[in-house]
């Protein structure tokens, strides 16, 4: 495939941001406003925009309110949090939620790796038992064991957790309902904070909500996907195209700042500072130049109060443009939507490439973060036929799942009939 000129790819990404993402994010902002408008006991609530994707959602939302004149009534704050930080809050003692989250994130990895991620320290001299692959019950037993290395790990986790809670207090000002505004999908942070800090009420207001992890979802009753709610891509629900290339949404919204891993102790009365809060961090939330986020923000900046009634219809058009680009990409869109390597997070520094390189062609497509893009990249001429086959496969899978769901619902009714 011939590489597109970088400037033209950047211009295409900017246009995609303006014409597809912008209207979709405007709809998200309108729905967020409606949610805070109708939230009972709003005086006891805070909108907590979660690092990192939530920080840009905060920028979009505040510009949306300024441009449309809609009044916000719930205080807003930037919450320095990550799954790692939320996991620490739910570790003493370890909740079922944190163990399942760690189990998925560190499947097959040694428990020393989990300990190093949680403590963000490499000097823990843990006994050999920690070298075993992660298992929830064993990890809980090792963590709570009465021996010096486990005690040091617990102390390191507790020290960080105390600092996070002080930061949280500064964000909420004593209000007891935290609404976590974030990109999504499973809402691990909501679940972990609900487990770890039950004295507060927690809700999630996410761009997307999806149980792609197939884990229990006790927090879903209080976690909304304001723009997308589905466990998988459904060809006939346009907005679920976001799940075909979720990293695109993440990449558009995540500023070039590190994930929150640690808090430094506070100086004086100031709350503890997260590693994300480097010099000039607030300026770095905005766009550095043309691109996906710059385009989306530019769309928000064009809004006027009398555009509000048009937002649902414009969002519908934006989603169609999004699906066209993501599910039916051409070589130009593949170049425009090329992303930098994605971080694996959870306290680790390694990254994942958008397009997988090792292995055969099919493995490269299967293991890529954007299979449709990888397919067009591998087969510039025949890729279109491959996309059709992929869409048929998705349609068949979705139909099969929906039929099974209907059968599951119908069976008890038949059994209960006289």
């Amino acid at each position, binding site marked *: 495939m011939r590489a597109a000129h970088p400037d033209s790819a950047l211009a295409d990404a900017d246009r995609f941001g303006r014409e597809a993402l912008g209207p979709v994010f405007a709809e998200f902002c309108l729905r967020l406003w*409606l949610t805070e*408008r109708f939230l*009972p006991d709003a005086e006891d609530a805070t909108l907590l925009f979660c690092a990192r994707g939530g920080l840009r959602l905060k920028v979009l939302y505040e510009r949306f309110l300024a441009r449309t004149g*809609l009044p916000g009534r719930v205080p807003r704050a930037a919450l320095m949090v990550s799954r790692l930080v939320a996991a620490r809050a739910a570790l003493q003692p370890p909740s079922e939620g944190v163990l399942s989250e760690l189990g998925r994130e560190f499947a097959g990895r040694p428990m020393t790796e989990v300990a190093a991620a949680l403590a963000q320290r490499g000097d823990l001299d843990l006994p050999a038992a920690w070298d075993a692959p992660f298992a929830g019950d064993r990890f809980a037993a090792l963590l709570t064991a009465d021996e010096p290395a486990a005690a040091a790990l617990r102390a390191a986790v507790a020290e960080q957790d105390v600092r996070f809670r002080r930061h949280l207090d500064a964000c909420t000002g004593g209000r007891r309902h935290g609404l976590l505004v974030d990109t999504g999908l499973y809402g691990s942070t909501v679940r972990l904070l609900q487990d770890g800090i039950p004295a507060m009420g927690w809700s999630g207001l996410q761009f997307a909500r999806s149980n792609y992890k197939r884990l229990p979802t006790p927090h879903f009753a209080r976690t909304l996907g*304001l723009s997308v709610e589905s466990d998988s891509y459904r060809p006939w629900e346009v907005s679920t195209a976001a799940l075909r290339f979720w990293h695109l949404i993440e990449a558009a919204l995540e500023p070039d700042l590190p994930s929150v891993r640690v808090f430094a102790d506070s100086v004086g009365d100031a709350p503890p500072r997260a590693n994300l809060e480097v010099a000039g961090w607030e300026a770095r939330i905005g766009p550095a130049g043309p691109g996906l986020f710059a385009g989306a923000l530019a769309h928000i900046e064009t809004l006027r*109060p009398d555009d509000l*009634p*048009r937002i*649902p219809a*414009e969002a519908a058009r934006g989603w169609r443009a999004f699906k066209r680009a993501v599910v039916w990409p051409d070589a130009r869109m593949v170049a425009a939507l090329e992303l930098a390597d994605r971080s694996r997070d959870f306290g680790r520094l390694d990254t994942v490439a958008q397009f997988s390189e090792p292995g055969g062609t099919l493995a490269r497509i299967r293991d890529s973060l954007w299979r449709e893009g990888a397919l067009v990249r591998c087969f510039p001429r025949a890729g279109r036929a491959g996309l059709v086959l992929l869409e048929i496969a998705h349609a068949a899978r979705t139909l099969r799942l929906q039929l099974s769901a209907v059968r599951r619902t119908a069976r008890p009714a038949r059994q209960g009939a006289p």
Partner: protein
Amino acid sequence: MLLPERSAARVISCDVFDTLLLRDHRSESRRFRDIAALAAQRLATEHGILRDPAAIWSVRVEVQRHAYRALDLARPTGDVRFADMVDAMAQVLGLSGPPAAILHEAEIAVERAQLSANAPLLEWLGAEARAGARVIAVSDIYHDAATIGLLLGALCPRHPVARIYTSADHDATKRTGALFATVLRAEGAAPGEVLHIGDDHRADVSMPRALGLRTLQVVRPRHLILRRRTDALRARLVSALAPPPRYDRPGSRLA
């Protein structure tokens, strides 16, 4: 519906929609479209304000959906007030004063046109009232008691309803049981003294029964339920197949 000759209840509590007042075959989606069409027409003719009926409809759907989802986050036993929904709709649609009031008036006008009185039930309730029973209306609805009173007065002027309780007024719903507790307290009645009549299995049968009230379920004809579902499906298909309205925004290249 088989009504007993006499209820032997001190208080008869009656659901409103699809019990005292019967909806026709139209689905909620169709009703919202009819309301939007009437509001758009009145805004244009009375105030010269042009609003696309499809935009009014989609704003209504968005507002109602997210209002209830927000409620579920913090107070799932409560209810949303229609006045708040109209206020939010007016803000999104850029309306205020008399034009904003049209959103409310169109809703009531369409409800009046599409509802009819349940004559046999009202006749029976009248006889019960004359025999000494107190008849009240209890509804899970975003409207306030005054609006329900207006509809009842218009559609069945000699109704025997002495007091109206709505979930919006009391921020408590039947489907969670909270409104029944309020009603029992306000009426000074023991659960066993109350007969509740309604159509919804959860809100009007299982929940009041669990609280000790006697219940009677009004069942709407199956063919009507089927027609409503067909109408809702038709509305969804029409909505899915209809091209969205085109707007001329400078710089937009999306078709």
